[in-house]
Every structure is written in C-alpha cells, then in structure tokens.
C-alpha cells in the first residue's frame, strides 16, 4: 500500500536486467464478479495496471473504450472497481497501479479517492488525461495516503519538460511509446525507443513504456532502454474475443507468459 512496493520492484528488475511486465485490464470486465479471475490468470505479471472505467476516455482507442463501456454497463461503479483492486491485491499480492481519468478523482473528491484507493490496496495512480501542471496539485493528496503518482512523458515532450517531470520524483514515468491513443500497432518502436533514450539520459527515475505495445518483438527491443512495459489493448481484446470466462483466462495465461518471457 505504498509506492515502496513499486520502488522495490524497479530495483529488482534493474538488478536482474529485465523489464517489469505490467499488463493493463479494465476492472469490471466482463463483470465486477468475474473480473478478479482474469487478473489472477495473468501469472506472468510483475504488477497490474487496473483501469477504472470512464465514459469519455480521451487517451484510449476503440478496444479499451469498448471494454470500459461493457464494464460500466455491467455496473462497475468506482466502489465496484476498487472492490476488484482489493480482491486482486489479496489473491496475488502484486503491486497495483490504478488508472483512471481525472474527473473520476475530482467527482469523488481527491482526498476521498486517495484514501479509498489506498485502502483497497492500490500502490499508485495514473490519471491519463492530465499533464504535469494539473497533476501537481493532486500529487501531495495521493502521496499523503501512500499512493505514488505516475507522470507522463510523450514523444512530443521536449527535454526541458522531461527535466521538470523528472524533478517531481514520480513513482515512475509512463513513457508514451507512440503518438495517438492506446491500441495495437503494426508499426515499429522508433518513437518509443527514441523517447526512452532521451528520458534515460536525463533521469534515473523508473521508466515504464506503454501505448501501442503488444508484440514480444517490441517488448524485447525495450530491454535495457526502459524498466518496464505496459500492454493494454492486446489484453482487453483477448477478453472481448473470448467465448467464455475460462477461455479468456486460458488465453491471458498463455499470452502473458509469452510477454513475461520477452521481458527477461
């Protein structure tokens, strides 16, 4: 229940010379009751990014949007989503980063959101639609409850902004590996690798890359350039495509094992 657990994870992966694998999945998909079992099936994960579904997810592509819509329809309120966090934490013991959009935090009240997320077992929070400037007032509120705050760096972020982001000592920097919203890509990693290189040359803050990642070749390329990788759309898509809950579990177990292997 503190960023310390993520700090530990990053020092472990650094000493082992590998990437931390952090799969993203929307909480409440396909339903709040069945959702925890899908996280549990992702045995290859080092930590989880648990999405709190939002009606207007500006940073997400069609797949994550569709998953969020189903979760909301299935009754995934904030309370239900945090219920999933709590169960996954209990059964796996792995660090959990909750990902949401700022309006969910503000509507709940930042203090209350921080307290409830921490109580559910979250270690850190990602607010996908705010930059450094709007994250700063919320950061101490989260940190007071022991939650780390993740800050973003994008391929478009100039070096002086990277320095300002690093100075804020985020629990990790979420390196946006490609322009655009979340989603699987056939394109290469050029922008992501370039960004990782720029971040690395300026700060020792942990760097986790995400957006547009899904293939093990892309992951392997990030080794040495970053500390971790987030895969979201490829996981949500597998859940949406599965015929049954068991089929989804089996496929996630297989796929995350393959990616975990590529992280080593």
């Amino acid at each position, binding site marked *: 229940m503190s960023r310390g657990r993520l700090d530990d994870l990053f020092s472990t992966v650094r000493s082992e010379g590998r990437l931390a694998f952090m799969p993203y999945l929307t909480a409440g998909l396909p339903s709040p009751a069945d959702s925890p079992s899908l996280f549990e099936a992702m045995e290859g994960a080092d930590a989880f990014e648990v999405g709190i579904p939002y009606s207007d997810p*500006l940073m997400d592509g069609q797949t994550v949007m569709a998953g969020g819509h189903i979760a909301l329809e299935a009754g995934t309120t904030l309370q239900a989503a945090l219920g999933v966090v709590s169960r996954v934490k209990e059964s796996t013991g792995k660090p959990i980063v909750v990902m949401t959009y700022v309006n969910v935090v503000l*509507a*709940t009240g930042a203090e209350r959101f921080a307290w409830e997320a921490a109580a559910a077992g979250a270690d850190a929070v990602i607010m996908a639609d705010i930059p450094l400037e709007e994250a700063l007032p919320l950061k101490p509120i989260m940190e007071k409850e022991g939650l780390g705050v993740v800050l973003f760096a994008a391929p478009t972020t100039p070096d002086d902004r990277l320095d300002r982001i690093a100075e804020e000592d985020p629990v990790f920097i979420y390196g946006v590996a490609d322009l655009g919203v979340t989603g699987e890509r056939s394109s290469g990693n050029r922008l992501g690798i370039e960004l990782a290189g720029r971040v690395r040359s300026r700060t020792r803050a942990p760097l986790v890359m995400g957006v547009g990642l899904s293939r093990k070749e892309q992951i392997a390329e990030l080794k040495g350039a970053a500390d971790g990788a987030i895969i979201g759309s490829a996981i949500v898509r597998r859940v949406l495509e599965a015929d049954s809950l068991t089929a989804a579990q089996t496929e996630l177990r297989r796929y995350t094992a393959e990616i975990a292997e590529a992280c080593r």
Partner: protein
Amino acid sequence: MSDGVGLGRFGDFGGQYAPETLMPALLALEAAFDDAWDDPKFRDRFSSILTSYVGRPTPLHPASRLSELLGVNVLLKREDLAHTGAHKINNALGQGLLAQRMGKTRLIAETGAGQHGVASATAAAYLGLECQVFMGAKDIERQALNVYRMELLGTEVIPVTTGASTLKDAVSAAFREWVSRPEDTHYVIGSVVGPHPFPYMVREFQKVIGEEALSQLEGDLPDIIAACVGGGSNAIGIFHPFFDTDVELVGVEAAGLGTDTDKHGASIGMGTHGVLHGSMTYMLQDKDGQVLEAHSISAGLDYPGVGPEHAWYADIGRATYESVTDAEALEAVKLLSEVEGIIPALESAHVIAWVSKHRDRLKGKTVLVNLSGRGDKDVAQIKDMGL
C-alpha cells in the same frame, strides 16, 4: 479583470486537462496565438476577410413586428446572415489563419449541428488546407444537408458511433485524432470549450459580434442581451464586450424535454463542477464523475458541458442562465418565421422562445438577441416533426 484569464483560468474554471502528448501542441498554440493576436498584420488580414468574405458587420435589426406582438423591444444581431449561415465562421477562419501561420497543413474539427463543420470546411477550402470533420452518427442523420455541404466543400466527414453518437462524442473523437497527429494538424475546436488556450482564443475570435453590436447601438445600450448556450461561443462573443457595462446578460440553455427529466442540456442550470474535454466547468455527470448524455432537439445545444468562462460568469453573477424546452424552441421557430420572415436555427430559436416566454417580465424593455444561425439546416428535421 474582465479577461478573467490567469494561467488559463476563469476563476476556478478552465485549465489544461489534456494528455501529455498534447501539451507541447497546446503550449505552441498559446504562444502562436498570442504572437498573432499582437501582430497588426494578422489582425488586419482577419478583419479584412471578415469584411470581404464573411460579410461583416452583420446587421443589427429591430424586429418591429415581433416587438409589437410581444410588447418587448427586440433587436436581432443577425449572425444568421454571416457566410455559411452562423457565427461559427468567425472562429473557423481565425483558427484556420492561425494554423496556416503555424505551418499546419491539415485541420480537423468536430461538429454537432454541422454549422461549425461547414465553417471549418469553408475555412479549409478558402485557405487551401486539408480538412476532416468528426460528427456523431445521430447528428449525421438529423443534419444530412450540412453533411453534404461539407463534402461539397472538399471535406471528409467521419461518423462517430461511440456513446450517444452526438456532439460530446465527436469532440472526444477529434481529441483522439489530434493526439495521434499533433504535429501537422490543428484541431479547430468549435466553441469556447477545451483546454487552454481554446476557450480564451475562441472568445477572442468571436468577440467581434459584441464589438460590432456595441458600435451599432451608438451608445443606446439595451437592458438585456440574450444568447443561446451549448458550448457558448456565440454567447461569449456577444457578452464579452459588454462585461463592464450595466447590461444584463442572459444565457439560454436547452431544457430538452424538461429540466425535471434526464433529457436536457442545461449544464449550468443542472450540472456540477467537473472536468470535461480539457477544462474545469459545469457539466452533467453522475456521482462517480461519469459524463451523462445531454439531450436537445437542437444538435448544437446537445452537449453535457459548457465553456469555462460561462461557468465563471454564472459563479460571479455576471450572467444568469435559464432554459427553454424543445417544444418552446419549436414554437419560436414558427413565431419568428411568420412574424419577421426569418427562419432561425433551432439553437437560436431558444432565445426567441425565452423572450416570448418571459414577455410579461420583459415588458417595455429592450432585449438584444444574438440570432446565431439560420434555420435552413433544420428545415427537414422540423418538417419531419410535423410543425
């Protein structure tokens, strides 16, 4: 003080709630706009295009038969006579010129009623830029004529099928597209919404409406200025130059099927503080912060948020915000058409409906109505409804 702009805020409202990928584009836009707006050459070019191409100044028309009928002295600011049929063209050309100055080659825009889409398509054609317009599938259906106009102007219309397939979803889709291509693309946002600098910049491009009215009134100020408010660009455009006067400012929101139902677009009247499409404002949302669908017969007012400057005007009491229903707006289309020979857009008809509804309270007063657009685009929809 009348600017209310400090770090992109209007009081507690506004801000820059945007993904990091867009921040460099927003910061560059802010710098480019400030530079352009301080440059007399840019201002002159904008102004001369507004004159020779848009047909500004638009007339200030005393609606004498309507005035006689209602017992209220009604003046109409005829934005419906601007090229392409609404005030939207002021902003689309302003942003188009700025985009070109910044070296962008492609415009994207969202549209609800289709007026901003047509205005953006027009600006793109005029300036020789590529253009794509995102439009909710439901709006494409109810505004078929404007879709065809955009296509005729060489713009690609992209249907948006997420959410309720209306304006909110089109704005989200346009933002997603901009996150994908911030480098060669400018997002011509159509109202005083979005992250800073958009609400401020769009107001600057639209305040020509109020500046003209102020000069056309020749010192004889009205008691009230009233304008419809979806995102609120025509309203802020006419309100802003009157900020420091004693004129009462009234924004008219869409009450849809009634503000006692869940089918309306009264974001200020019925909404709460929240962040929508990049700024802190009043919005329609549930207790978890999920955005609720708005409803209005008029696609341009069918939006669950409102420009942050309006939220601030409401908070400090500089303007009041009231609402009228779909049915009242429809009646007002008929009224203005029959009595003045002007078919108003459904959006603008809300203001006529407000005056008519409150004619007793307004008796003998002078009300300047911003007639933001013409009704040609709505004729098929209205006919289908059997008016």
